[in-house]
C-alpha cells in the first residue's frame, strides 16, 4: 500500500472513532517512520550507485590498459616482421587476438554497467522527489491538525468548553444580522430626518400655519375674528379712554358697568 492510501485509510478509520483526532500522534509517528525508512533505502541505493560507478571506472581503466597493451603488441608485430622473426610475431599476434576478444567483451560489459548507472540515477532522483513530496504531505497533515485544534481552542475560549468551531456560516449569520441592524438604523435615521428636517410632518404643519413665519389665509381670518370679538367687549365698557388699568379684574369692571 502506498503511503498516500495509508493516510486516506487512517482518515477513514479515525473518522469513525468518536473522540479520536483525525490523525493521532501515533499515526503521524508511523508515517514519519515510513518516510525515514524510505530515506534510508534511498541512501542505501545511493551507496549502491556509488559502488557501481566505481566498478564502472575500474573496468574502464582495465579496458584502457588492455587497449594500450594491444597497440604496444601491434607495434612489436610490425618490428618483428621487419626483422623477419615470423615465429615470435605469430606468438604476439595470438596474444593480440586474445586481447581483442577480451576487449570486445569488456566493452559490452562496460556499456551495460553505464546504462545501469544511468537508470539507477534516474530512479534515485524520482525516489527523492517522492520522499520530499510525502514529507510535505505529512507536514501538511500535522499543520492542518494543529490549525483545527487551535480553531476549536479559540471557539472554546470564546463561548465555553463545549463550544464548536466557529464556521463561515456563523460569519454569514453575523453579517446578515449586522446588515439587518444597519438597515434598521438607516430606516430609523430616515424617519428621524423626516421629522427633523423638511419632512412630511413639517409640510403639513406649515400648511396648517402652525410654524412661525408661515401665515395661511385661515390664520389671517382667524386673527380678524378674534379682533372683532375683543372689540365687542370694550363696547360694553363705559368709555374707551377710561383710566382704569387694563388689568382690571373682570368682576370690578362688571361692577362699574352695573
Amino acid at each position: 500500500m502506498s503511503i498516500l492510501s495509508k493516510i486516506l485509510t487512517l482518515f477513514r478509520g479515525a473518522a469513525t472513532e468518536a473522540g479520536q483526532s483525525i490523525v493521532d500522534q501515533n499515526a503521524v509517528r508511523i508515517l514519519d517512520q515510513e518516510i525515514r525508512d524510505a530515506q534510508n533505502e534511498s541512501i542505501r541505493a545511493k551507496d549502491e550507485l556509488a559502488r557501481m560507478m566505481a566498478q564502472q571506472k575500474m573496468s574502464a581503466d582495465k579496458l584502457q590498459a588492455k587497449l594500450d597493451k594491444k597497440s604496444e603488441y601491434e607495434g612489436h608485430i610490425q618490428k618483428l616482421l621487419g626483422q623477419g622473426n615470423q615465429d615470435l610475431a605469430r606468438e604476439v599476434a595470438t596474444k593480440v587476438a586474445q586481447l581483442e576478444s577480451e576487449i570486445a567483451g569488456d566493452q559490452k560489459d562496460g556499456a551495460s554497467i553505464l546504462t545501469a548507472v544511468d537508470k539507477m540515477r534516474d530512479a534515485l532522483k524520482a525516489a527523492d522527489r517522492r520522499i520530499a513530496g510525502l514529507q510535505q504531505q505529512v507536514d501538511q497533515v500535522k499543520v492542518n491538525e494543529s490549525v483545527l485544534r487551535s480553531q476549536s481552542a479559540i471557539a472554546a475560549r470564546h463561548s465555553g468548553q463545549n463550544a464548536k468551531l466557529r464556521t463561515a456560516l456563523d460569519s454569514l449569520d453575523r453579517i446578515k444580522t449586522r446588515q439587518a441592524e444597519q438597515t434598521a438604523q438607516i430606516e430609523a435615521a430616515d424617519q428621524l430626518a423626516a421629522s427633523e428636517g423638511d419632512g412630511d410632518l413639517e409640510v403639513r404643519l406649515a400648511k396648517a400655519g402652525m410654524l412661525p413665519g408661515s401665515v395661511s389665509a385661515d390664520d389671517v381670518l382667524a386673527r380678524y375674528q378674534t379682533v372683532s370679538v375683543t372689540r365687542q367687549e370694550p363696547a360694553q365698557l363705559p368709555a374707551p379712554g377710561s383710566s382704569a388699568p387694563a388689568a382690571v379684574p373682570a368682576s370690578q369692571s362688571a361692577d362699574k358697568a352695573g
Partner: protein
Amino acid sequence: MLEMSLREPVLSPSLVQIKDYAAMTQPWTTPALFDALETHVSRERLPMKISLEPGSEPTIAISLPEHGDLAIHLAASGQQLFVSTPLCFGSQVRDRAAFNDACLRLNPVSPLSNIGLQSLDGEDVYMVFGEMSTRSPIANIVEEIGMLADNTLQAAHALQSFIQRA
C-alpha cells in the same frame, strides 16, 4: 532581506513598504510571520485582529470584523504556508453526496481557494483553504487572507441551501 530588516528603523516609509512586497530570501516561520504581520496590519491599518496561538505547531489566528468575524488560521509548514477557515460541519449537510458534488463544481470557479474535508474529534469539518510559498512577501499573504475570506463567504452563501441550521 535581513539587511533590510536590520536597517528598518532608519529606512524611509516607502522603503519599508517595498520590503513588504519583496519576495523573501528566507522562508517564514510561524512566529516570524506573526511579528511581521502584526507590524504590517498596524502600519496599514487593516481591519484584522491577529493573535499567535502557542503549541508544538504554533498557528496565527486572524479574525476579520468586516467578514462577520470570520476566523482564519495561518501556519507555516516546510515549504508551504497554509491558510484555512472552517466552512461548516459535515453533520450540518443534508445531502452529503450532492454537497460534495457542489463543492467540486465550485472549486474551479474560485481556484485560489480549495474546499476540503477534515475531521476533528471524529466530526467532519468542511474547510476552505489556500496554500502559498513560505517565501511569499507579506503583502501577498495579506491579499491571500482577504481573498480566502471573500471566497469562503461566497461559498457559504452559494452552499447555504444544502446546510441545515440548528
